[in-house]
């Protein structure tokens, strides 16, 4: 694009959306608006004849009808190079840290989807050293999984822990509507944990304008995709996708779109899916794995955001009471990998979950005042050990050690034949003393 078109008359300002009369403008093109508070990016989201609507990244506040709108002749882009590592940006792609702005090798965001015939079947485990994930709901390279959680749960702590422990070459973290202290926490935790140098962060905090929130997933995923094409295994961490959906809702309502379910736009599913589907394992190249926190308003999994997410993703982790719940949580791809880790993995996983479920029944009986049999006592002991030694989020154990620990807990509580495990496995793995 040779000449940048400049306009000095804004026709309307409604919420974060302004309109100008302009010609030769392309759909989704970026513009720069200069207001008395500084400059902001804006993106074309509707063109009707010569009336062009733009969503202003910094929001509509303080924009004057006489402010200058300069069209930039290109779409939203993000710079891509190794220099990104260790850096922090906002939703417009500007540095949030003290580092220099990056303008080289600009890549378009929100690009087309991967040809399914160039994908390969997810078949590699991604280790996190968190037993509730590695043993019970194994994370698989190229999987997309949400962490369903209610407000107040330590989901950001969990993400930070995964970022530090996961077996990934690059971590790309996207924060949407993040509380400022959570942002500081991530920065702090990652630098202490030594993972900052392989991490790129795109952060929108709750105080930042809404439109920037909507940019975060696309920025994050565009960068992740580029790293993946350079043969890197990338782990994308997003928090919190419900804020992203709410930002879309806000813009859609401002633009008088017909709402479908609880005010969310009709394309909520497609919008979420086009982001999650960026998770990929490229044939002969790297991969993108996505873990995304989705807070459930009112702990209601049928709320449109978790509900649509559940249909898109390959399972989910439920975070409840500070722990990953073994029952609601499900990694749909785990069977692709847990047959080639260690031969006792699947059986031990099933047996431990079955016994834990019996423990819950016993606990219920106990709370109702029934007398406890010897078997019940065993289950109670088992349940407590299980929660304490394996479920706690502070546990940091490689898979093999976690499996060994599992056998120890079983041996501590039960006889071999009470576990319902095939005897050839108990013979081999049951602790000897």
């Amino acid at each position: 694009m040779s000449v940048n078109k400049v306009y000095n008359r804004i026709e309307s300002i409604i919420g974060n959306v302004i309109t100008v009369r302009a010609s030769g403008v392309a759909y989704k093109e970026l513009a720069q608006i200069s207001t008395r508070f500084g400059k902001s990016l804006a993106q074309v989201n509707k063109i009707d004849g010569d009336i062009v609507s733009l969503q202003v990244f910094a929001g509509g506040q303080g924009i004057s009808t006489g402010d200058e709108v300069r069209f930039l002749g290109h779409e939203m882009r993000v710079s891509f190079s190794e220099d990104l590592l260790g850096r922090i940006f906002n939703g417009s792609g500007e540095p949030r840290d003290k580092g220099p702005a990056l303008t080289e090798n600009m890549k378009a965001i929100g690009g087309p989807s991967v040809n399914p015939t160039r994908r390969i079947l997810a078949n590699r485990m991604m280790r996190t050293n968190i037993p509730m994930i590695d043993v019970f709901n194994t994370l698989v390279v190229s999987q997309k999984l949400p962490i369903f959680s209610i407000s107040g749960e330590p989901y950001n702590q969990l993400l930070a822990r995964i970022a530090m422990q996961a077996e990934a070459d690059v971590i790309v973290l996207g924060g949407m509507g993040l509380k400022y202290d959570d942002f500081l926490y991530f920065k702090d935790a990652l630098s202490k944990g030594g993972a900052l140098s392989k991490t790129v962060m795109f952060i929108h905090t709750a105080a930042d304008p809404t439109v920037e929130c909507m940019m975060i997933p696309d920025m994050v995923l565009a960068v992740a995709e580029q790293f993946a094409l350079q043969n890197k295994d990338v782990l994308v961490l997003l928090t919190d996708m419900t804020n992203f959906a709410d930002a879309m809702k806000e813009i859609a309502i401002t633009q008088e779109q017909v709402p479908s379910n609880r005010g969310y736009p009709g394309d909520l599913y497609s919008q979420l899916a086009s982001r999650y589907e960026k998770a990929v394992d490229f044939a002969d190249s790297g991969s993108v794995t996505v873990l995304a926190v989705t807070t459930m308003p009112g702990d209601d999994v049928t709320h449109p955001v978790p509900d649509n997410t559940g249909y898109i993703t390959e399972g989910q982790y439920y975070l409840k009471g500070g722990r990953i719940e073994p029952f609601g949580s499900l990694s749909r791809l785990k069977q692709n990998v847990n047959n080639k880790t260690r031969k006792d993995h699947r059986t031990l996983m099933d047996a431990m979950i079955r016994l834990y479920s019996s423990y819950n029944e016993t606990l219920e009986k106990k709370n109702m005042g029934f007398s406890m049999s010897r078997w019940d006592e065993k289950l109670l002991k088992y349940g407590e050990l299980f929660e304490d030694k394996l479920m706690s989020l502070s546990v940091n154990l490689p898979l093999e050690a976690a499996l060994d620990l599992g056998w120890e807990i079983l041996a501590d509580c039960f006889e071999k034949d009470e576990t319902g495990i095939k005897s050839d496995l108990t013979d081999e793995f049951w602790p000897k003393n």
Partner: protein
Amino acid sequence: MTENKGKVVSINGNLVSVEFDGNVSMNEICFVKVGNTTLKSEVIRIRGKVAQVQVYEMTDGIKCGDEVEFTGDMLSADLGPGLLGQIYDGLQNPLPVLAEQAGWFLERGVYAEALDGEKKWAFTPTARVGDTVRAGEYIGTVPEGPFTHKIFVPFYLLGNYTVKSIVAAGEYTVKETVAVLSDERGREVPVSMSFKWPVKRAINCYSERLAPVETMETKVRVIDSFFPVAKGGTYCIPGPFGAGKTVLQHTTSKYADVDIVIIAACGERAGEVVETLTEFPELTDPKTGRSLMEQTVIICNTSSMPVASREASVYTAVTLAEYYRQMGLHVLLLADSTSRWAQAMREMSGRLEEIPGEEAFPAYLESYIAAFYERAGYVRLPDGSTGSVTIGGTVSPAGGNFEEPVTQATLKVVGAFHGLSRDRSDARKYPAIDPLISWSKYGSVIDSEKQSFCKSILQYGDEIGSMMKVVGEEGTALTDYITYLKAEMLDAVYLQQNSFDLVDANCATARQRYVTDKLVNILGSNYALESKDDARGFFNRLRQKFIDWNYVEFESEAFRKLEREIDEIYEKGEGKLSSIAEKLLKEGE
């Protein structure tokens, strides 16, 4: 391509308004020019001199004033040999070819021929010069995989035609003229082995539609015995996320007793398509001994692909199904998921600013869903043979609530309903088809009296189960408790099935009949059981043996042995056949 051209005047998401001269028809295809690429689009509303078109691609970068070329054609599918084994997107572009042209990503504006124009097919003429032929009759055949692919007089030709010339047997490409027909006024029409058909129109070149009465075996016990599907029938599988809709369809696609399976992956995960792509070429069909892939077509418009072509994908899929039906084949179309298709309609309706119906779905949702399922059917063809299209669609209701518009509109028009329940899937009961809410209007592979006997036990067992939650085991009478255990056993050994086990997953009709008889015998007997503990122990033993029985080859040595062991347990419980069961077993013979 007509000379008709237009100019873009507004852009809103994937809806673009185009000012045109001349004439434009509804659902006509046009191309929007953006820089060096052209984007395929479809006219969905015309007002005065402005046509509103839905663009099948991302619309980024389109400007007012960009040129639009109208083609005069409606969205069509290419029909001819070479469709089987293909992986298409919603607009029938072969994805492997796109990968060769564009690499990793589905770049917009890249289109490819649906049928390989280079490949030669061995054509054998069946019509002779001078024969009178009509649309839907065939003039020759080519072998395609395990089938004889018929080369038709194109379905769009109206009236009688005379064969003026036809080529000799030999190798031809799909584009070469193999025959010349002339109509009653002597106008000549060259015919090749392929032609186009508009996907939104049903192919109706058959003599008559017949009632769907023949059961389509899926080898899934709960379906074939309790909630069967007929060839040429329709069924739907609604269920919340994680209930196993896709797994169930995947199993059906492998084991169903049909000639061809067409999988429409509509707005779902790409990973699942990759799974099919990886698995199917490795599997062989026991009937033909050939790779399953040769009997499968995949139409894949995954959730991140443009939404307008998602809407087109189900129509493309059903058109291919109808085409193979015309050859006297039985085709199963599996659409996963129809909710995503409905949502695609909702998105477009919102952009068109139509007055929204329930949950913002358009008012025409029901009639579109009905029209789609009505394209299923069992038909008699002009040559006297029969063929069928069976349609099975999954539905993904918001929040798992079946009261929502798509589920309700679908239930009105389908012949069988396989409702999946969250409770059953959480309890890892596969398939999670809930026997208490599902229904079917088609005939079962087992005797209907036996079927209702089994269903009544399930119903009664469920009632006792809910009562037991209130009064506890102590407060339940022994006879009721035994009925409860019988229902539990029926559920565990018959309704549930292991889709990962090759023997259990593939339970054919003969076996289903045999096993049902055994079950009617066991469930319809009274036992000399003293206490609830005795009863529980007794049924646990029976259940365990029965499950083992499910895993051994039908009529094998092991099968006989386990059957004897089941009988021994039965004898020990001093089972006495009730009169009802006795009557059932006698009549069934």
